[in-house]
């Protein structure tokens, strides 16, 4: 058994730069490259792609990443665990196999983990008594059933462990939790029991800290961004896990950024709710007494986490089509920049009203002034204000209405107040997908694996 297992965080989201992962494999001496590609509603987009063409539905950036990293992974024995499979892990695994052949690699086992997608099982499960009611509002699923884009379960790491036990070099998952990408390799390597809550909970806290890539190593650092060097070549984090689930967080040698108590603290508190009750599919973690210690340059030890049993239910990620956003923005200059922008906005709203505009909600933001904090900021008082950008956005149930926002603002070029520019060309309409958060008892969800050999 290994004394230390080194897990690297290769991706933080779909579309993230693939260079940090490639560098990490080359210089980081890692055992596993763990790549998270899925945000809350990525599955909506991927399901749509799969419906259009059954060869797609995964995040195609994994192909770019592996094109650069796979030869080195094979040479050094680095395994890859990813949720890039999205809505179509099988197609993703097949594409990776094809890539391996293109690169002249052979003797590889690529596993795909299935079982998270319950789209075709909803009626059966409802028949068996799973209500899928909205966790936040209590509403019945019937309210949005016809508009659902996808339904998948935040699944745990058992399929990853099974894949590694079957000798997989690459494990391609769909909607497993970000945390599972890390717990899977640790359970496999250290032989932890599935109810070893303490080790799993401790390791979960470390995984949470590194799974957003560069945010643990100096990216988005608010505690002194001025002194953060090498952001352009930010090294992504690596956690060196001990058998007790604690770890030292570091980063790719010779890369930009920094790992210290400040950068690690900021990321520990990122996107968590109650730190005493961090729920995942595999374990409940308690961050309350987490402790950090700088043990060397760019090396921070994380300990003090606690684990408790996993929740009885798993979270389901469902999305549904929820209309469109129509959006326009334009820039007014001195003199009277702000007052002219207010008049321009009145012009747009009056024209929309005459056009019989139907919308659910709208917003006006003065960019450069209050676009982030709305009415918390009063109107600008400086008469010398050189320019202001005004943005209008409205949420509409249908696309035809949303398009009116742009068409009705075009006359501002000639017919509104003077000193306007930057209306620009027609922006693409943004289709909206809303989340339907709900739960399913875990006994209804069973993962399975399939292996593709090259």
């Amino acid at each position, binding site marked *: 058994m290994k004394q230390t297992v080194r897990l690297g965080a290769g991706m933080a989201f779909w579309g993230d730069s693939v260079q940090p992962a490639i560098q990490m494999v080359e210089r980081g001496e890692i055992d596993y490259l763990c790549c998270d590609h899925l945000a*809350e509603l990525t599955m909506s987009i991927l399901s749509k792609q799969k419906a259009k063409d059954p060869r797609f539905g995964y995040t195609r950036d994994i192909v770019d990443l592996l094109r650069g990293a796979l030869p080195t992974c094979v040479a050094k024995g680095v395994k890859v665990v990813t949720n890039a499979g999205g809505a179509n892990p099988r197609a993703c695994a097949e594409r990776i196999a094809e890539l391996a052949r293109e690169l002249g690699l052979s003797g590889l086992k690529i596993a795909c983990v299935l079982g998270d997608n319950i789209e075709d099982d909803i009626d059966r499960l409802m028949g068996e008594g799973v209500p899928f009611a909205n966790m936040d509002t209590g509403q019945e699923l019937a309210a949005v059933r016809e508009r659902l884009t996808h339904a998948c379960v935040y699944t745990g790491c058992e399929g990853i462990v099974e894949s590694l036990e079957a000798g997989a070099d690459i494990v391609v998952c769909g909607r497993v939790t970000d945390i599972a990408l890390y717990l899977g390799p640790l359970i496999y390597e250290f032989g932890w029991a599935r109810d070893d809550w303490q080790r799993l909970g401790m390791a979960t806290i470390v995984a949470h800290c590194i799974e957003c890539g560069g945010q643990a190593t100096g990216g988005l650092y608010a505690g002194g961004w001025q002194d953060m060097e090498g952001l352009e070549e930010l090294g992504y984090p690596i956690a060196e896990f001990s058998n007790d689930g604690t770890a030292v967080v570091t980063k790719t040698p010779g890369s930009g950024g920094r790992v210290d108590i400040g950068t690690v603290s900021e990321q*520990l*508190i990122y996107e968590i709710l109650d730190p005493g009750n961090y729920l995942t599919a595999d374990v409940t973690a308690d*961050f309350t*007494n*987490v402790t950090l210690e700088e043990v060397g340059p760019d090396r921070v030890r994380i300990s003090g986490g606690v684990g408790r049993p996993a929740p009885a239910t798993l979270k389901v990620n469902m999305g549904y089509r929820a209309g469109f*956003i129509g959006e326009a923005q334009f820039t007014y200059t001195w003199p009277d920049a702000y007052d002219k922008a207010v008049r321009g906005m009145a012009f747009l709203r009056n024209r929309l009203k005459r056009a019989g505009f139907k919308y659910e909600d709208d917003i006006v933001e003065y960019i450069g002034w209050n676009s*982030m904090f709305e009415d918390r900021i009063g109107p600008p008082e400086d008469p010398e204000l050189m320019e202001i950008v005004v943005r209008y*956005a409205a949420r509409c149930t249908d696309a035809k209405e949303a398009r009116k926002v742009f068409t009705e603002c075009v006359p501002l070029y000639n017919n509104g107040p003077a000193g306007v520019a930057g209306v620009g060309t027609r922006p693409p309409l943004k289709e909206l997908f*809303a989340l339907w958060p709900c739960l399913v008892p875990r006994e209804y969800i069973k993962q399975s694996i399939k292996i593709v050999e090259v």
Partner: protein
Amino acid sequence: MAKIRVADIAHGRSGDKGDTCNVGLVAYDDRGFELLKRHVTEERVKDHFGSLVKGTVSRYEMPNIKSFNFVLTRALDGGGTMSLRSDHLGKVMYAWLLRMEIEE
């Protein structure tokens, strides 16, 4: 008593979970942590965010890393995918909390 801003004693980060926004504050030192504990209460934070937060504010403490986590519900105009705001993911909400004035 002299007024300071939260930014003078802490740094932070914010993000989204649906329509819930979390704002984490990390004090630069123990004294800063004590000041946050005393002054940056759930009530003050709720009041400070005003109409930006339509739900509740809950505060959680992580003493060993001198941090507090604030969980703001109904805070992102319907959540990342539905929001009309430019900051639909709540990435800059931390900055508004850093601007809050407290007594030293």
